[in-house]
């Protein structure tokens, strides 16, 4: 068997060295009562050609965003991936390395983590970044837990316009710690500041806002930041990193934590994962931060090097007193993000953001002229917007699918009061021709 190098002669020799006669003897500690007597119910082994044929067959039963024209967003985006990203992330020395517990032979991983942290701090305008977490949703939930610990309060406020799956994860994590979540209602696609004021009392540990929010709209972040801080809570900004090519970074509007989904920075869609959650904060909150961090130091010769820093926050040292139970980061995804940001540079990130912005606005303005479809909200937006349809959302989705267009998703899935609304996303990959074609299809009502 190709992954198992021993020959029968090897096994015999090794058993002799051990001093037993049969493999069975090594398992003598497993009592009869808990021995598994059957054969595992998994299919028989496949040879490599059979396995490849089978996997290709499975893959061929999927339709990709390359085969179709995709307007899918909602937390995962088909931004263009420069070729260098996969070439770097495919280096065996990166993807087959373990966690950098031996820094002397892990400088590649540790320096790229440090560079990733630095790039994210620059992009977000924040003081400190960790080396990434599971995804945007868990990063936001961890920010809420830390806020509760830091303020010694038991309630997190979250805007109803935050990604529905982030809010679900937040509720799960908060319930786990016996903490409470309160949602701030929206009006016209953005958080209702007046009603937020009433809900943000002195018992609120933090306010979590997404900007642009799930509907693509820009939130009144400056007003909301003031409300959160006036209540004595912390302000958590969830951001789309690509938007920061044109939008003010969260460090400039008073975010204590800025978190988000980093997939759009150089990572494939991968049907939802693995992605990376980025997590940044102010210097003041640094020691509360969960997750791995790389820090610069010197070696015995006085040469610069990197190690895992602030490890005394972490579970392998602090056990039940750790800041979080998290034990890994998404290092390879963070590496891809670092390569992506390096490749784009300050001009590239602005260029991508502007392409998304202009193309999305072009589509938006064309849709506004249609009869049976209208933009649902009038708030400023970045690359996504909600369309209200006179036709059932399901019919729009299936109608466009026949024409190799992926629309949606159906916003009514997440917000029952927004039945027959669809969230359209336009990345830099869409061409004017594709946008015009979509509008023509909608105009002809599919």
């Amino acid at each position: 068997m190709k992954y198992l190098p021993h020959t029968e002669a090897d096994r015999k020799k090794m058993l002799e060295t051990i001093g037993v006669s049969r493999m069975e003897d090594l398992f003598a500690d497993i009592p009869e009562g808990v021995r598994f007597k059957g054969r595992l119910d998994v299919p028989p082994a496949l040879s490599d050609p059979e396995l490849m044929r089978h996997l290709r067959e499975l893959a061929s039963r999927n339709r990709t965003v390359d085969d179709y024209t995709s307007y899918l967003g909602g937390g995962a985006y088909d931004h263009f991936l420069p070729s260098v990203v996969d070439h770097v992330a495919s280096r065996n020395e990166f993807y087959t390395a373990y966690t950098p517990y031996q820094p002397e032979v892990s400088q590649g991983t540790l320096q790229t983590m440090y560079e990733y942290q630095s790039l994210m701090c620059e992009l977000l305008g924040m003081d400190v970044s960790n080396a990434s977490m599971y995804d945007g949703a868990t990063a936001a939930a961890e920010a809420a837990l830390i806020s509760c610990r830091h303020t010694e309060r038991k309630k997190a406020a979250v805007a109803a316009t935050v990604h529905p799956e982030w809010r679900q994860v937040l509720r799960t994590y908060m319930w786990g710690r016996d903490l409470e979540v309160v949602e701030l209602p929206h009006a016209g696609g953005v958080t209702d500041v007046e009603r937020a004021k009433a809900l943000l009392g002195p018992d609120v540990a933090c306010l979590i806002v997404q900007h642009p929010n799930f509907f693509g709209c820009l939130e009144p972040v400056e007003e909301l930041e003031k409300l959160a801080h006036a209540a004595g809570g912390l302000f958590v900004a969830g951001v789309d990193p690509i938007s920061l090519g044109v939008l003010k970074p969260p460090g400039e509007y008073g975010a204590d934590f800025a978190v988000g989904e980093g997939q759009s920075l150089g990572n494939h869609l991968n049907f939802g994962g693995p992605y990376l959650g980025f997590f940044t904060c102010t210097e003041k909150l640094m020691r509360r931060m969960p997750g791995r961090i790389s820090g610069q130091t010197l070696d015995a010769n006085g040469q610069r090097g990197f190690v895992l820093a602030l490890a005394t926050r972490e579970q392998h040292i602090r056990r039940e007193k750790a800041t979080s139970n998290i034990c890994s980061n998404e290092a390879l995804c963070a590496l891809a993000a670092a390569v992506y940001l390096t490749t784009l540079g300050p001009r590239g990130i602005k260029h991508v953001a502007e392409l998304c912005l202009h193309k999305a606005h072009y589509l938006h303005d064309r849709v506004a002229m249609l009869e049976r479809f209208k933009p649902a909200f009038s708030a400023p937006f970045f690359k996504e917007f909600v369309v209200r349809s006179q036709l059932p959302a399901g019919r729009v989705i299936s109608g466009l699918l026949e024409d190799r267009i992926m629309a949606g998703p159906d916003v009514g899935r997440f917000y029952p009061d927004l039945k027959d609304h669809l969230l359209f996303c336009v990345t830099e990959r869409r061409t004017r021709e594709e946008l015009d074609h979509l509008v023509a299809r909608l105009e002809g009502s599919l």
Partner: protein
Amino acid sequence: MKRVEPLIFDLSSPGRVAYSLPAVDVPAAPLERLLPAGALRGRAPRLPEVSEIDVIRHFVRLSRLNYGVDLGMYPLGSCTMKYSPKINEDAARMAGFTELHPYQPEETVQGALELLYQTQCFLAAIGGVDKVSLQPAAGAHGELTGLLIIKKYHESRGERRNKVIIPDSAHGTNPASAVTCGMETVEVKSDERGGVDLDALAAVLDEGVAALMLTNPNTLGLFDENMRRIAEMVHAKGGLLHYDGANVNAIMGITRPGDAGFDVVHFNLHKTFSTPHGGGGPGAGPVGVKKLLEPFLPVPTVGRDGERFFLEDDRPQSIGRMKSFYGNFNVVVKAYAFIRSLGPDGLKRVSEDAVLNANYLMRRLQPYFDLPYDRHCMHEFVLSGRRQKNENGVRTLDMAKRILDYGLHPPTNYFPLIVEECLMIEPTESESVETLDEFADVLITIAGEAKENPDVVKSAPHDTPVLRLDEVLAARQLNLRWKKG
């Protein structure tokens, strides 16, 4: 070889670019007309300005400062760094898997859903459980998911149970996960054979116990013979059992935690099922449960209706979601390929060879180091560097660093905490007898050096891209990012 690579920021030269994007092909109004002026970015971020060759050379040079399993063995106890088969990588890089959006209509992702569904079934079969969720992103995330399921179960019965019992040999994530779901931890000590001390367990069991978490084989590499008895004792008090799957590599096709009475089992796909660690992630930590806990699993899971596969969202008693979307799909693709490649007999052989390799190394090294538990081990074992410390003033940390000079990666050290000057060694099934011998010979040489030339060990490493790094300095003068000079 040049060993210090500048920071990417220091390679920047204004005006250089490494990207190529088209001009805007639609009418473009000025930004100020599309967005409120106050929402716009003023100063551009200080990202590096480099050309493509700079990007490639920088990161490829950095990669060469890393050790990886494609370069050599990783004998990291409890971290299971086995070889990652290349066919898995080829599979995971197929566009039919990588270019799928999570919100695509189900009829356009039937291949992906089938792969997820089948993996749920395979893991259920391996663990002896009824239903598996692939959502957790890592082992610790799987632990947290398992404990939340247990918490929800007790809540559904109107019970408030707050204690989680954890053996003193457990991974640090176990107590940290328990605290993350609002529970207190109670530690039970190990007996002289390295298993859970049953008297100590009996003494802490009461109606407040929500769960016991057990890693079996434990972090000493020893199989707890009382597994079933432990499960019965905890069940008798109304508590449930979480099996920490960090060490499943020892037991595939040999024993199944579900059969021994465990209610929740988590798996580490990046350990047992060969998906590479990527320098610390992504991993995947699926969780399987027995029938009685199915209603509490996170949503969604993948269901099957004849030939059609679909996302199951309708589970009103669910703990909710643990992360966005459906788990680390691309990691699951690799694990799926591994399982299909080995089949039932191959998986069993994996565990047998993993155990054989560990026992072989243990017996080869036994004369040179202290062996705290002299019995057959499972897939890993612990040695103690007590002798070298007491007789030669050489610590386990020094020996670990000295291993680097011989071009190999050291074992896990100073864990588990209950063994003094611990070296925890897990060779995995991937390694040939020649590789094991090479590793053993290096350790034996270092044991000799500790006696005859302790200074060379204490000042190690000598032949690595950087020498021993000052962690105290790193903690005292925190430097966690580049700043413009």
